[in-house]
Structures are given as structure tokens and as C-alpha cells.
């Protein structure tokens, strides 16, 4: 593991004795119009320790963090730094007081380079003039120290979402700070990148920083936290110290009831693999892909997906999985043969793909999934209103309303009203909307790219159950995820991609995380 001690931090905070309370909020309340996002929330952050926040989607975690970072002003309540009451006038003020935040929703300027983004708030130079060389050099040093392999002169728009997440982390660490807020920093990262982030956190701890860590991956939280607070409906339910609690207890606190399992049971009889002697020739693949390639993105893929089957795709970040799905959805010009139900098809645009019954839950909800300024209603029915009945002129408003209402209930999406703009929803609830949008189409082939990114444990179970249900009803599902346990638990068959090629196909039985990981990294020969 790389050393976390070497990135340039101008202010190593020696004064902060470990355990001392650096930042405290008391009885913070935050309301948006009539809706209360936080109710009398209190929290203490200690130097050299990791305080994790756990809670369902919409519990108010991000709202609290935005208040700490000066982005939002609390409606009521106190905030104390080193025991002194303060009022933050804005993000700049918070930054000057040593509070750094990694936001849940990525906020980098795509038109600028990585280096420009890293130094957005304090570019090096004299008298207002930027020293670009120095900035590049410093950026390179910072990224190298963090173990991030990205060229700082690249434009952010050209990075994958995982890479952007890493840049976001580096940006927050590129300033003198005493408190580091991490709002779901690993939600779009794979296991190895996540481990890297944990290394960084260790380094921060060692230097006496107070860290707030938010994640829906409970195992992560168990692993790194010193204290864990559980939030529900804008309140702090309880704060536990490391080692005093269990995953089950936390989940029960979080959702208000115990959760029996994380993954729903698989189908009673796992579908037989193609060509297996048990069911010779009885089943035809619903989707079959041969010699599928797209220069620069992925090469020479052959696979098939049967009706009722969930095929998992695993690989490291940048392995090319997202591009495969996008190409299947008609977003990239790809070579090769695609057959649906034995019929060759051409997929040149999403419109054509949808017309063939393909749906695609994209990983980047902000850019590709949602129209943030429009209502929940319109976002859920976004594809449905014009794809369901081709050539229809009028919108059936009643049907639309009923449909949206149904999915909001089924997925437990927390909204104030169906007319609420999606921008106001919490990250996890936005993700559920993207999922709902595609379910509404009742697809034959469902492409899922990180479908549970930022979704809480309870809702994840529900999403898994729905995926399972759809498969049972005959949908062919391709699941791409960087959470290996998720892929392992859900997939009937698992394909591993490495360096833009398919390297291995596993049947459901006899799978261990280690074997899969070995193929995903170069440890096992293909």
C-alpha cells in the first residue's frame, strides 16, 4: 500500500491532541420550505478519529455535511469550532477555518484540467498570476503521493466517473485542513480504489485530523470507524463506539426494524448454462453478442444472456464494462453481431435499443440519468411516455401519475411531492428514480451499471428483489458493479473483464472473491 504520509499538506496539525473535540454541532435544525431535513441534530468530531454517519437515503446526512462545509446555513442551532461558536458565511469561510469536504455529488468543472480543478481555490503564483508549471508539478506530486494514476493535464470531461471521484478526493486534500468530510467517497469506486481511500484516511488520522465518513457500505464503516452515528429522519438515533456494535444492530437502528438478509434468495433452480448437457438446445439466448468490439473502448467480446438470467460483469475501474453496456445501448458505434431472440439487430441509437426492449440504468445519474430541474413525475416517466406506445400524441396524465406513484411507493423514494424538482432529492433517492425510470418500460433486456450507487441497505435489498423478480419473469439482466459481493450474490453467471477484454466466464457455483479478483487483476492467466 502506498504511503499516505507524503502528500503536500502545508499544515500538519500538531496542536490537535487525539480525542479532543475539534468541531461540534448542537441541535441543528434545517428546513427546506415546509420539509424538515434535520431536527435537533448534534454531533462531535474528535481529532485523529473517524466518525461515520449511517442512515437511510434522505436521512439528512449530506444536508448536515453541507452545513458543516458552509454551503448551507442552518435554520436553527449552534456550531462550535474549538469550543468557540462560529457562523460560516460560505464555503470559502469554512475552508479558511480548515474544513474540507468531498461532496457526494461530484462538482468538478469538466472544461478545465485536473490540475486546474485541484487548485481551484488557490492556484499557485504571484500577484494574481498563475504559475501553470508549478501547478502541474504540484498536482503531479499530490496525485502520485495519493497513488492516483491520472495525468493532471487531462481535461476532467475525459475522465470516467471513478476517476473523477478520485480527483475530487485529491482536491479536498489539497488544502490545509483539520476536519475532512467525506460524503460517500467510495460509492463509485472498486475495491482496490476503496482500499486506497482507507489508506488515505489512516494517514489523515495519524496526523490528527477529524474525519467524517459517510457510506452505505456498512462493512467499510465497521472497518474504519472510531465512532458511528446512525441517523433517521433528520435525527441522530445513537452514537456507538468502535467494537461496541454489530452490523445487524446498526441496520436495525437505521431502518427501524431488523433486516433478515442483504441479498434476496436466488431462483429456485439456477438456469442451466448454455449448452449444458442437462437441457440441450431447449433454450435460446435472448441476447447474443459475437465479435463485439469498439476501438479504444473494448475488443472482441462474445457472450450471451438468456431470458431469466442475471449475468454479472466484473472488472477493475476502467476495465471497459460501462462502455460495453453503452455500446449495447446504441451509444457507440461498435462492430460485431448482435442478435435478439435469434434475430440480428442493429442498435445505432438508444431510441432503437429501447424499441427493441433494452433499458440502461447508467452509472452517471447526474449527467445521463436525470433532468435535475424537472419534477420527480416527469423524470420517472421520461422514457415511458414516448416509448411505451410508439407514435402516441397525448400524454395520459392519469396513467402517468399512477405509474410514478407506484414506483415511488415500491422503491420507498423519499419525496415531498411528485412535483418536487429532482435536484432537491438526496443522492440515494435520485438513484432510485433512475432505476424506476427504466423499470417503467418493462424491458426485455435490462442493462445495469452500478445500479445501487449510494443506495441505503434497506432500499438495496428492495432493488435486488426487483431485479430478481424481473429475471424470474423472463427479463435478461446484465449487472455491472464494482461491489464484488453484490455481483457474486446476484449473478447467475459472472464475466470478468480486464483491460477492455473478456478474460473469464464463471458459472454460479464455486465462486470465491479471491478467484474472481485474481482474474480481474492480472494475477491469474486468462
Amino acid at each position, binding site marked *: 500500500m502506498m504511503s499516505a504520509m507524503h502528500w503536500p499538506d502545508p499544515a500538519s496539525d500538531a496542536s490537535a491532541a487525539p480525542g479532543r473535540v475539534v468541531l461540534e454541532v448542537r441541535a441543528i435544525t434545517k428546513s427546506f420550505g415546509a420539509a424538515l431535513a434535520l431536527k435537533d441534530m448534534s454531533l462531535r468530531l474528535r481529532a485523529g478519529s473517524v466518525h461515520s454517519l449511517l442512515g437511510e437515503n434522505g436521512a439528512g446526512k449530506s444536508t448536515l455535511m453541507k452545513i458543516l462545509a458552509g454551503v448551507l446555513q442552518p435554520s436553527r442551532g449552534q456550531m462550535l469550532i474549538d469550543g468557540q461558536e462560529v457562523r460560516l458565511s460560505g464555503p470559502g469561510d469554512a475552508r479558511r477555518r480548515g474544513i474540507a469536504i468531498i461532496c457526494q455529488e461530484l462538482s468538478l468543472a469538466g472544461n478545465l484540467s485536473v490540475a486546474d480543478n485541484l487548485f481551484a481555490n488557490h492556484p499557485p503564483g504571484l500577484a494574481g498570476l498563475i504559475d501553470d508549471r508549478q501547478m502541474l508539478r504540484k498536482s503531479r506530486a499530490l496525485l502520485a503521493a495519493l497513488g492516483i494514476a491520472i495525468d493532471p493535464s487531462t481535461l476532467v470531461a475525459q475522465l470516467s466517473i471513478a476517476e473523477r471521484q478520485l480527483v475530487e478526493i485529491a482536491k479536498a486534500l489539497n488544502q490545509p485542513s483539520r476536519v475532512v468530510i467525506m460524503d460517500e467517497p467510495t460509492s463509485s469506486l472498486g475495491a482496490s480504489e476503496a482500499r486506497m481511500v482507507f489508506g488515505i484516511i489512516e494517514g489523515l488520522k495519524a496526523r490528527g485530523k477529524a474525519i467524517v465518513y459517510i457510506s452505505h457500505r456498512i462493512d467499510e464503516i465497521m472497518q474504519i470507524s472510531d465512532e458511528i452515528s446512525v441517523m433517521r429522519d433528520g435525527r441522530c438515533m445513537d452514537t456507538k463506539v468502535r467494537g461496541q456494535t454489530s452490523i445487524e444492530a446498526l441496520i436495525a437502528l437505521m431502518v427501524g426494524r431488523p433486516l433478515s438478509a442483504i441479498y434476496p434468495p436466488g431462483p429456485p433452480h439456477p438456469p442451466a448454462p448454455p449448452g449444458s448437457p442437462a437441457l440441450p438446445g431447449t433454450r435460446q439466448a435472448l441476447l447474443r453478442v459475437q465479435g463485439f468490439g469498439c476501438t479504444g473502448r473494448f475488443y472482441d467480446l462474445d457472450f450471451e444472456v438468456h431470458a431469466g438470467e442475471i449475468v454479472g460483469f466484473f472488472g477493475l475501474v476502467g476495465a471497459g464494462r460501462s462502455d460495453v453496456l453503452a455500446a449495447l445501448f446504441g451509444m457507440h458505434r461498435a462492430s460485431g453481431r448482435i442478435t435478439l431472440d435469434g434475430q440480428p439487430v442493429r442498435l445505432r441509437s*438508444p431510441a432503437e435499443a429501447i424499441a427493441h426492449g433494452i433499458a440502461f440504468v447508467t452509472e452517471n445519474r447526474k*449527467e445521463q440519468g436525470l*433532468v*435535475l430541474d424537472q419534477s420527480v413525475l*416527469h423524470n420517472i416517466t421520461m*422514457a415511458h411516455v*414516448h416509448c411505451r406506445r410508439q407514435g*402516441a400524441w*397525448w*400524454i395520459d396524465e392519469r396513467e402517468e401519475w399512477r405509474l410514478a406513484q407506484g414506483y415511488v411507493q415500491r422503491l420507498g423514494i423519499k419525496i415531498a411531492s411528485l412535483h418536487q424538482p429532482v435536484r432537491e432529492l438526496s443522492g440515494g433517492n435520485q438513484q432510485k428514480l433512475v432505476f424506476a425510470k427504466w423499470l417503467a418500460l418493462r424491458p426485455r433486456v435490462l442493462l445495469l451499471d452500478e445500479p445501487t450507487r449510494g443506495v441505503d441497505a434497506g432500499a438495496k435489498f428492495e432493488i435486488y428483489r426487483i431485479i430478481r423478480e424481473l429475471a424470474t419473469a423472463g427479463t435478461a439482466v446484465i449487472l455491472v458493479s464494482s461491489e464484488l459481493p453484490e455481483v457474486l450474490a446476484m449473478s447467475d453467471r459472472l464475466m470478468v473483464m480486464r483491460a477492455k477484454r473478456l478474460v473469464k466466464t464463471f458459472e454460479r457455483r464455486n465462486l470465491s472473491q479471491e478467484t474472481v479478483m485474481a482474474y480481474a487483476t492480472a494475477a491469474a492467466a486468462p
Partner: protein
Amino acid sequence: MSVSTYWGRIARRYGGILLGLIALVLLFALLSPAFLTTGNLLNIVLQVSIIAIVAFGITYVLLLGEIDLSVGAIIALCGSVAGLLLAREMPLLWVVGATLACGLVLGAVNGALSALLGIPSFIVTVATMGIFRGLAFIASDGMPVPVDDEAFIRIGNGHMLGLPVPIWILAALLALNHCVLSKTVFGRKAYLAGGNAEAAVYAGIRVKRLKIAIFTLSGLMAAVGGMVLTARLYSAQPNAALGWELDAIAAAVLGGTSLAGGYGTMVGTLIGALIIGVINNGMNLMSVPYFYQLIVKGAVILVAVCIDVQNKKRRG
């Protein structure tokens, strides 16, 4: 959907700017006795009808986050086409059809250049603004074409059930465009694509096709405007409607349409156009000198929008 929230949404949507309009009407009613008469109010609606019709088309375009600066030139060119065809004694229906077709084609050209070649619509329509205007001048030799076809003139100057024909046209197009925008799949697509084009593509919306359709609609509305104008002026003017594109865009933006796309309504646009019309008419009735009219008009627009913005902020 309860009635109260329905009205609440209506109030939220048009509230501020509608209040602005009403305040203006009251103000001028106090200041000028000739203002609040049926005749004069009809007058105002008549005077804004053309700009409002054109602004309906512009609203679609802005909704998509695009811009159309060529509508003034399309008005002039379509008007000239109508005038020239009438001069050749073509039957009325044919003239109307040909003029509308002309607007359709011009709009489609804008849309195709922008959507298929990927040229920013600002540049496309700045360029076609010149091209269409040049064509209008060439077609008519730079000279106005007098129109004396009685039936055609009625489009601009006739009456039906006591109301001027342009007002009927305005009302019909308002109803039509409002329905298209709020009730049809097409309208929904426009809002979605304007709000986030990438997400719209992923949702299977053929955004390029949509863009062409929307510019075509804008061209069509401008053609209607050109016909009404030609009929109202008894002549087709190749240099008519100079700079009206800005007026039409201003009406739409005043009415709450966002230049960045994704927001806007036809009713709002009409209110925006009426505000401009009321200001112009009121100041004329009060005999405000021209130079001061420029200043007052700017100031009133600022105040009206400012109230609207503050209102929206307060309600969150």
C-alpha cells in the same frame, strides 16, 4: 392533485409576472383616461399579436436551450412571398399554404444546419438572418409590395364576432401551442431535452429530430406572423420586423422562459408580450417623448422581472 395545489402551481408559475402586468395596467389606467377602454385594450392585444405569435415559436426554441435570431427575417421573407404571390393573383388559400410552407422550410433549414451539422444555433440563425433578409430584398427588389387582395387583408384588418381577426389567430395559436407544450409527448420531450440533452438521448429521445421539428415550428409561427403583418400593413415589406427577434425573445424570457433551456410556458410568453405592449401603448397615450420612452420601458421591464424574481425566491 387537489385544486388548491393546482392553483398554487399556477400562481407559482405565472404569479409574479402576472402581478407585474396587472400593476402596470392599473398604473396606466390611473395616469391616462384613454387607457382603460375596451377599444384601447383590444388595441394593445392587436398590437402585440404578431410579436406574441412569433414569441410562441421562440419559446419552443428557448425551451430546448437554443436560440433563433432569424425570425425577424423569416417574417419579412414570408411576408414578401405572400405579397408577391398575391400580386400574381394566386388564389388566397394557395398563398396562405405557400407562405406557411415557406416558413416551415426556412425553419427546417435552421434546424437541420444546427442539428445535423452541429453548428451552434446562434451562429446558424445569425447567418440565416442575413441570408433570409437578403432573399427577401432580392425577391422584392428591395421595394415594398403593395397588397390589395380584400380577403387577404382581412387576415390583418378584418373582424369576427366583434374582435379583430389577429386576436382570434393569437387566441387559437395560444391554445394550440399551450396544449402541445403541456399535454403532448412532443412538448414533454422538448422540456426534457432542454433540461438535460444527454439524459434525453439516453431516454431514447431523438434529440436531433426534435430540434429540427422545433426550429420548423418557430419558422411556421414566424410565417404566420409575417402574413398577419403583411395584411395589417397592406403591403409586404422586405425590411419589416428588423430586430423583432430580440423583442420576441425578450417577451418569452420576461414570461419566465429560461435561455438555458428547460423552463417556459406559452401563457408566460403571452404575458411577457402583453407587458411590453402595455408599456408601449401606455407611454404613447401619455405622450412620453420617444427618448424617455426608451428609458422608462427598460426601467419598467427591470422592475417587473425583479418583483418576479424576488417573489420566486421568497416562495423558495
